């Protein structure tokens, strides 16, 4: 009885949240327009109440998953009694309906945080921001209730469920969606601030200072989310690929690029009161790309035009949301952008101009990803050509922008505001330049393939890291004692930029020097790959909680010394009737040893794949360093004082 009640209560509070959001969307907006303080003051408590309602709803759904309540259609389709507890919980968002509930939960969390930490915001701006945030909430709550209700019941509940896709039963993927959504949805704050500023007709340094922490937090979460997804692909898919240029990946990458551009242009607004209308446009576009991403992932249109045509309801609903919000915001932008006059004056060569270049490169790079992702759809609908756009296209069309960006980044970062001279800015960077060229040459000498990939990647990565170090040193007036007293924002900037460098080195080395070996190995036989002696010791069949596994024991030695004993697995999940590979990886700073066990061969022995992946972990380590840079920046004093975020929104965690 209690079980039934809790779930129904969750359904009820979800409907209540929709009504609250509708109120919160209208009342404060009218209040702000008329100058009625009571109406404006309603926004904050409504945001808190809306968040609590959705949190309750989400808890109820989690409860249904944890207690395996198969009278809920969603639980039946995505869970199983034998599933480990972690995956019962992560199963809540491992499906369409639940993931949308998580989406609105995070949306409401950001709205409520703007109230909780936004004490210093002018009341009119705050009312408008919360109102816009609630409009987005109304749209998505209606989407859930009318097209994707997670609380639908089954008339005759079965004894057991159909299990979660085994590929999703993995710790990396359990936490990938929450982080990604914190990023996607976090950009709604930038959007709400932008629309509120357009309604207000006023953008100034204070506005930029309020909007930047939210963007920074969203970007940071996106970074972690994307890195988790890529890391998951690396160890789970069985051959160590880390990025596929899949439409779903691109959907998260485009907002990341635009958010990165927005972070930088907001600095110009904050420090120099220029680039105002462009920053507003970026804020709209950043959330626009989040919505496009949600559309791509949730409608399935890119993967199959036909699947979309058969069941267009959800896709069209999200498309309508996209059209209303982005169309509306852009119309407002067209009407009001002229009123945002810039104040700061600067020369052609200056920090401002460098940041404009940063924005040009990031925005065009995002545009390339956008065109490439949508091109198959356009070609099919407009030209009746059925074609694919895959990794080779993106590698060629996207990479040049990142190379140019990395090449100019350290110089731009060290330039002074207003007026700079390239020679003067370059001078302190000479040691970094020499170091970069030296490491690039080293990479060229070590590589046997004589390709440009590794030397260029290593040189640019070193240039970024050393350039950041030089910049910190300059900022501290070349005195070690002063380094510790630099503002945290300086450290954050240096960390984020060197993180990018670390990722550059990782990608370049991994792609250039990856060693692969595929063979049939007999039990007890030793073979050599890239200097490692590898012995297949044994293969046994074992039983997991909800799968059967073929588990191999493989020893790896180098120069007669044992380096690692690895246990790659091949699993079969009987309920979902799906096999998965579980690669065994010996992680290292300089290389990963990556082993996969394949099928037993008809004439004895097992298929074994061995990969040696140099610098693989640098890719994700770089992403983590970038995210840490974001955390450092968020904790900077200037945001704690007087800014919209008294406490860093980095503290925000997904409830439950």
């Amino acid at each position, binding site marked *: 009885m209690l079980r039934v009640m809790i779930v129904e209560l969750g359904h009820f509070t979800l409907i209540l949240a929709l009504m609250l959001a509708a109120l919160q969307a209208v009342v404060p907006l009218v209040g702000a327009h008329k100058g009625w303080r009571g109406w404006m003051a309603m926004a904050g408590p409504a945001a808190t109440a809306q968040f609590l309602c959705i949190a309750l709803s989400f808890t109820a759904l989690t409860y249904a998953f944890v207690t395996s309540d198969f009278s809920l259609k969603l639980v039946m389709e995505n869970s199983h009694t034998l599933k480990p507890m972690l995956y019962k919980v992560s199963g809540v968002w491992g499906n369409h309906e639940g993931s949308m509930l998580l989406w609105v939960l995070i949306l409401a969390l950001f709205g409520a945080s703007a109230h909780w930490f936004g004490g210093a915001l002018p009341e009119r701006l705050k009312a408008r921001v919360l109102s816009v945030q609630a409009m987005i909430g109304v749209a998505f709550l209606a989407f859930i209730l009318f097209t994707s209700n997670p609380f639908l019941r089954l008339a005759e509940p079965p004894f057991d469920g159909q299990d979660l896709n085994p590929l999703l039963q993995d710790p990396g993927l359990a936490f990938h969606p929450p982080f990604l959504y914190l990023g996607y949805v976090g950009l709604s704050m930038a959007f709400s601030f932008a629309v509120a500023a357009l309604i207000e007709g006023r953008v100034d340094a204070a506005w930029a200072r309020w909007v930047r922490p939210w963007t920074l937090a969203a970007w940071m979460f996106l970074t972690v989310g994307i890195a988790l997804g890529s890391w998951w692909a690396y160890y789970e898919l*069985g051959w160590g690929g880390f990025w596929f240029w899949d439409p779903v990946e691109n959907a998260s990458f485009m907002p990341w690029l635009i958010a990165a551009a927005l972070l930088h242009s907001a600095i110009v607004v904050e420090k120099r009161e220029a680039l105002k209308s462009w920053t507003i446009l970026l804020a709209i576009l950043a959330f626009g790309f989040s919505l496009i991403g949600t559309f791509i992932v949730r409608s399935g249109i890119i993967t199959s035009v036909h699947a979309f045509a058969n069941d267009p309801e959800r896709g069209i609903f999200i498309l309508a949301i996209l059209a209303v919000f982005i169309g509306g915001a852009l119309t407002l932008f067209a009407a009001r952008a002229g009123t945002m006059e810039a104040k700061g*004056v600067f020369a*052609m060569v200056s920090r401002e101009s460098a940041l404009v270049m940063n924005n*040009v490169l990031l925005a*065009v790079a995002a545009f390339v990803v956008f065109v*490439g992702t949508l091109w198959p759809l356009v070609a099919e609908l407009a030209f009746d*050509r059925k074609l694919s*756009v895959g990794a080779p296209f993106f590698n060629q069309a996207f990479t040049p922008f990142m190379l140019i960006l990395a090449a100019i980044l350290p110089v731009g970062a060290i330039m002074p505001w207003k007026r700079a001279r390239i020679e003067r800015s370059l001078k302190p960077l000479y040691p970094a330049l020499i170091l970069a060229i030296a490491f690039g040459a080293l990479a060229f000498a070590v590589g046997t393939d004589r390709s440009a990939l590794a030397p260029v990647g290593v040189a640019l990565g070193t240039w970024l890291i050393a350039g950041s170090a030089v910049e910190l040193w300059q900022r501290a007036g070349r005195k070690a004692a002063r380094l510790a007293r630099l503002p945290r924002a300086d450290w954050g900037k240096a960390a984020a930029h060197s993180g990018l460098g670390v990722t550059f080195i990782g990608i370049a080395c991994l792609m250039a020097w990856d060693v692969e070996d595929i063979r049939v190995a007999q039990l007890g036989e030793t073979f050599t790959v890239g200097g490692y002696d590898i012995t297949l010791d044994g293969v046994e069949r074992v039983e997991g909680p909800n799968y059967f596994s073929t588990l191999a024991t493989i020893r790896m030695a180098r120069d007669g010394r044992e380096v690692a004993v690895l246990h790659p697995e091949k699993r079969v999940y*009987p309920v979902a009737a799906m096999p998965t590979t579980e690669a065994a990886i010996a992680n290292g700073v300089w290389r990963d040893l990556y082993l996969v066990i394949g099928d037993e061969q008809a004439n004895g022995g097992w298929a074994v*794949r061995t990969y040696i992946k140099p610098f693989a972990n640098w890719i994700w380590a770089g992403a983590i360093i970038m995210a840490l840079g974001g955390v450092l920046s968020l904790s900077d004093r200037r945001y704690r004082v007087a800014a919209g975020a008294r406490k860093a929104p980095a503290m925000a965690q997904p409830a439950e």
Partner: protein
Amino acid sequence: MRWMILALSLLAVPAFAVQPDEILDDPALEARARELSKGLRCLVCRNENIDESNADLARDLRLLVRERLVAGDSDDEVIAYLVDRFGEYVLLQPTASGENLILWVAGPAMLLVALAGAGIYLRRRKAAPDAAPAPLSEAEKARLAEILNE
């Protein structure tokens, strides 16, 4: 449970990517086959190339590519052979022909437009008179004092 493990292990489990029995004896030919495979789409998968895909169809295509190479086809001939049979959908890198030129030109063209826009903006910023910042209002002054005293 034992019988179940046995039954499951007998089930036709899809093979994982390139299998040892597919590999050609001639390392030069095999290297070409791998390189070609990376640019060919597994037709039933989502954006995956045949070199990485686990699908049966991908295995068939891998074997087909190797068959053509052993028969003495050049790389271009192998590609042409596959496009003939499966259409340009099989190419992960779209050809730079016809309407596809839009796709290839879009990035560089946008870069030029953006650079021109940025150039015009920067030129204007340079020429603009340096507007004196508006003086603080009484309320702002009070708030500033409050912040500084914190």
